[in-house]
């Protein structure tokens, strides 16, 4: 301390060094992140402005916004975008709804709860690829029972495979996705439910709140932060997950069940058009970024009000 007072010039240099100190410490980590995350993203996005056909050695020229202009005219892309909304909203919506119901049921003790809980969480442990295979078999009238049951119940005019029906093909992967993703919501919501002190419910019961009112005025406010963050994460996750669709319908028939993520996959690895695929992917990233910022803003205002 006394040294810095007696040497003002030295102390200034020292202070400047101190200013950089945090950056010096974090530099290795930042470099690592840049090398492994940022650079691939930038390169990937740069493909969107080039004409890269994997099997065409003369390709690779810079084409400006051509890929994006084509994108705007591409009916398959717009259909995939519409399907992405349907796919994501139905998957996340039903996963959330069923997960919430399961969590509420599992939150109260009953005989055999541990066993049922373990069974319910099982789908989450199964690889998506297998889930997709399993459901395509279940939906296939040649080997699976579901079309016959739906026919017997009068839900279908004939025991057909919905995966080959352009109007309904998307619903096959949606069923599988709901089945697979429900446990995620059940687990996280159950954990949040169990952190609500029992006495708060009892106080409300004495104050005269019925079951519905207690759910509205205690359970919901307690769960809201968990709900928002899980829905936000799952929405991005589900919108970005083409596995079930690729496995079950390959986006078909005739791109009818394509979502943007699976369309990227098809363009890149079946069309081998990396430039165009990258433009589609960039569009998807932009849309999801807008969505993420919206939800984070909602969450901030909600936390502010608490």
């Amino acid at each position, binding site marked *: 301390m006394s040294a810095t007072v007696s040497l003002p010039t030295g102390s200034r240099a020292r202070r400047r060094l101190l200013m950089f100190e945090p950056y010096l410490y974090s530099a290795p980590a930042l470099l690592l992140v840049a090398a492994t995350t940022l650079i691939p993203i930038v390169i990937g996005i740069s493909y969107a402005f080039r004409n890269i056909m994997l099997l065409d050695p003369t390709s690779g020229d810079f084409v400006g916004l051509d890929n994006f202009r084509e994108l705007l005219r591409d009916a398959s892309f717009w259909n995939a975008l519409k399907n992405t909304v349907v796919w994501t909203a139905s998957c996340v919506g039903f996963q959330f709804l069923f997960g919430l119901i399961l969590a509420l049921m599992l939150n109260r003790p009953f005989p055999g709860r541990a066993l049922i809980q373990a069974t319910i969480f099982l789908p989450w442990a199964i690889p998506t690829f297998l889930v997709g295979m399993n459901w395509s078999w279940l939906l296939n009238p040649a080997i699976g029972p579901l079309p016959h049951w739906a026919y017997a119940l009068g839900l279908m005019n004939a025991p057909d495979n919905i995966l080959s029906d352009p109007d309904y093909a998307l619903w096959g992967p949606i069923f599988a996705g709901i089945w697979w993703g429900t446990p995620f919501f059940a687990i996280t919501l159950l954990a949040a439910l169990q952190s609500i*002190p029992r*006495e*708060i419910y*009892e*106080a*409300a*019961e*004495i*104050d*005269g*709140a019925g079951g519905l*009112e207690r759910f509205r*005025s*205690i359970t919901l*406010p*307690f769960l809201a932060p968990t709900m928002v963050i899980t829905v936000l994460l799952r929405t991005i996750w589900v919108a970005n997950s083409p596995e079930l669709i690729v496995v079950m319908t390959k986006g078909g028939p005739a791109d009818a069940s394509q979502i943007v993520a699976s369309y990227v996959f098809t363009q890149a690895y079946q069309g081998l058009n990396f430039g165009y695929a990258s433009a589609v992917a960039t569009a998807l990233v932009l849309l999801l970024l807008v969505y993420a910022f919206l939800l984070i803003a909602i969450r901030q205002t909600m936390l502010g009000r*608490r």
Partner: protein
Amino acid sequence: MASIDIKNVRKDFGPVSVLKGVDLAIASGEFAVLVGPSGCGKSTLLRLIAGLEDASSGEIHIGGRRVDDLPPRDRDIAMVFQSYALYPHMNVRDNMGYSLRLKRTPQARIAEIVGRAGAKLGLEALGERKPRELSGGQRQRVAMGRAIVRNPKAFLFDEPLSNLDARMREQMRFEIRKLHRDLGATSVYVTHDQIEAMTMADRIVAMNAGIIQQVGTPLELYDDPANVFVAGFIGSPAMNFLTGEARRGETGVALSVGGKAFCTLPQAVAVPEDGRVTIGIRPERIRIGVGAGQAVEAAADLVETTGAASVVHVDLAGQAMKIFTTERLQLSQGQRIPLAIEAKDVCLFDPAGGGRLR
């Protein structure tokens, strides 16, 4: 305001019997304190009255009406929890007004009632705060406010002060009593702290292991305990218990400890056949010095002082005993001191069942 009558109530959790037949009548407007060691079933009894738990058998009446089958909200009671159980996402005013809002009371009327309760508890400036922005004592007050606002037939308190520091506890004790004096509502107050019980209660209900041991005013329990449990639980420092012998003689019942004469009780007192008894005497009733009665000699062991008073630990024929005195004594270890013990201060207990011998 209403009386509370509990008739032969039992409560089992699976194979565990927590309340083993409780009979209790609490008069309208009375401040009754349920006291007992941890796990004796105090909270369970309170929760049965509130309706948060169903009795395995027996009847509960509030204001003459049987309430066993009514849900908590129809029993017209208010409860203050140990954890306060405030609604964390509501501000102080909404916490207090919640029950009124559920009853569809007009906004203006809610504001008026909540305002009045808040003023009574010194919460006026805190109306907009959330519970997490309050101190423990303030949360405690909000919990009380929430109870007052409902204007219930009875208040139930479950160890409401146990999360506060000693000074705050003393103050809240006083405030709760004052509040009870103002409102005059029947109150059942659970605590494991016998000082709280002594200072607050109109009547104390001493419980142990799911059974009511004694019901009476604080001084009744203090002066005339029904058994070893009550005698040992009420009072601080606790009553001394000595293993002794009782022999009926010409002049009365002579008590001896370790073969040495201790004191002589009147003939009327009951004595077991074998003469073995537990002798109870409160530390503050023992005088150091030679008195009118027989002098008993003990050896000083250790003196603890709080400033206002001292506790002298002594050894009487191999048994430890405490003496509470306001005198300032200089005693060395092993020093022999005479003790004066009067027959009226001695309680006799049956060593087998712990019951009082009278």
